[in-house]
């Protein structure tokens, strides 16, 4: 038995958004009487952290602390339309819609504060801790709670905002495929290192080293979650997963539970190291691009290429099972 080591590379890009269908999402925002800002959406958080990241977008735009922002989703009676959470569109579309809504609300908030402070709204700024203050004269300030109370009970104004982001529908030219299929592209390069057991055919992924360009990492820990979890899924796709192990010849023997449908467990995960680059997208929320989906992509060919580097077997069919590696080794020895 010999353990053969190899290294493989892959570089990819990935589009943000479902641009070919017309791709809108909306957000509404309103202030409570006591300085809270409720963001109403119908958008879905699948675990990628949408609720958190849109709250950050609102807090940043309003100039208010995160604690003042409440995200209410997803209810189709109270939340405005959202296309859905797919196509790496959530952060980009909903983030943009929330920023637009928050800008409108911020304008009203500053106008109300201006009246209370007897100042010009253009001369006001937020300090990020909950105060609206006069630029250059920070002691002239008013707390957001007093602003919203004044709006409701004194000035009779609603501090609210509406936001939408729409990527207009694009129709591909049938003859040539000319089209506008993306809002922006994120990028990645993955280096995989594997070890192949030439007796069992098992390929173990030892490490993934990734460089990602994401536009802007709005919440770096959550961006890291996508990179790391997606990398794991890429490994899983590469060496384990299928609902039809004898595709396409036979539809039989499909796994029906987690004992039969194999995925790497905690003892089978590679070491991952990653670096993030940021080239802000002109149309992204604070420059962010969508990276939710792409993180599973580069590892797969990087692993295929590493397996070849290790043992000379070129695998052209996913997943890269021990059987396929052993058959390849047999062919090389023949």
């Amino acid at each position: 038995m010999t353990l053969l080591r190899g290294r493989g590379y892959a570089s990819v890009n990935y589009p943000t958004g479902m641009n070919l269908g017309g791709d809108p999402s909306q957000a509404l925002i309103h202030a409570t009487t006591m300085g809270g800002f409720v963001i109403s959406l119908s958008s879905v958080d699948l675990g990628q952290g949408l609720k958190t990241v849109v709250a950050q977008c609102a807090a940043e735009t309003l100039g208010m602390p995160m604690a003042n922002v409440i995200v209410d989703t997803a209810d189709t009676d109270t939340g405005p339309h959202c296309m859905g959470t797919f196509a790496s569109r959530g952060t980009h579309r909903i983030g943009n819609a929330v920023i637009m809504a928050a800008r409108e609300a911020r304008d009203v908030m500053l106008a109300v504060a201006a009246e209370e402070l007897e100042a010009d709204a253009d001369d006001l700024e937020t300090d990020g801790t909950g105060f609206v203050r006069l630029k250059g004269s920070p002691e002239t300030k008013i707390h957001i709670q007093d602003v919203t109370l004044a709006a409701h009970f004194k000035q009779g104004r609603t501090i609210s905002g509406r936001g939408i982001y729409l990527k207009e529908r694009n129709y591909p030219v049938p003859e040539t495929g000319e089209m506008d299929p993306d809002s922006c592209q994120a990028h990645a390069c993955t280096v995989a290192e594997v070890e192949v057991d030439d007796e069992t055919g098992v390929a173990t992924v030892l490490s993934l080293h990734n460089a990602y360009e994401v536009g802007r990492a709005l919440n770096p820990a959550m961006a890291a979650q996508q990179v790391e979890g997606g990398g794991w899924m890429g490994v899983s796709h590469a060496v384990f997963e299928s609902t039809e192990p004898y595709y396409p010849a036979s539809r039989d023997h499909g796994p029906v539970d987690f004992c039969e449908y194999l995925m790497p467990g905690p003892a089978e995960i590679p070491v991952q190291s990653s670096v993030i680059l940021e080239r802000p997208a002109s149309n992204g929320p604070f420059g962010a691009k969508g990276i939710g989906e792409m993180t599973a992509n580069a590892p797969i060919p990087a692993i295929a290429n590493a397996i070849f580097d290790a043992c000379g077997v070129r695998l052209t069919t996913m997943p890269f099972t021990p059987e396929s590696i052993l058959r390849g080794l047999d062919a090389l020895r023949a």
Partner: protein
Amino acid sequence: MKIVSLRVNGAGQAFIARPGTTLLLALREQLGLTGAKRGCAQGACGSCTVLLDGQPVVSCLVPAVTVDGAEIATIEGLADGQVLSDVQQAFLDGFATQCGFCTPGMIMSAEALLDRNPDPTRDEVNEAISGNVCRCTGYEPIVSAVLDAAARRRSRAGEGAKL
């Protein structure tokens, strides 16, 4: 039909066990404790993990009639008021959750491990959570969080010894 009396998170409880009912369904539908999740109902995903007399079990495979007189611990009973358990706090601080569906079962498996082994190796953590499926995180943050929780527990125990 049988009346089952047991202790859940330290409090006395009782429910009527219909034929075929599992501990998971009894907890979720009769006792209102929905922290344990039904991910597969086959005992293979670990999302329903609770502690039965201190041992981690997949509650979807435990017939409800068999737990009469047992002591059950669920995710709902871990925190002491507002104060999270070390494992809960380590999962929170370590960004070890994404969708959160596997989290309660994962945490219960980790609690059981640390109860019997305060200083586990990485391999021992891997083994303890090997029956808990996570599709989001890639496991690394979870394993790190369990090791972190073990360190927090030991540090707390050390402080206690000094007093």
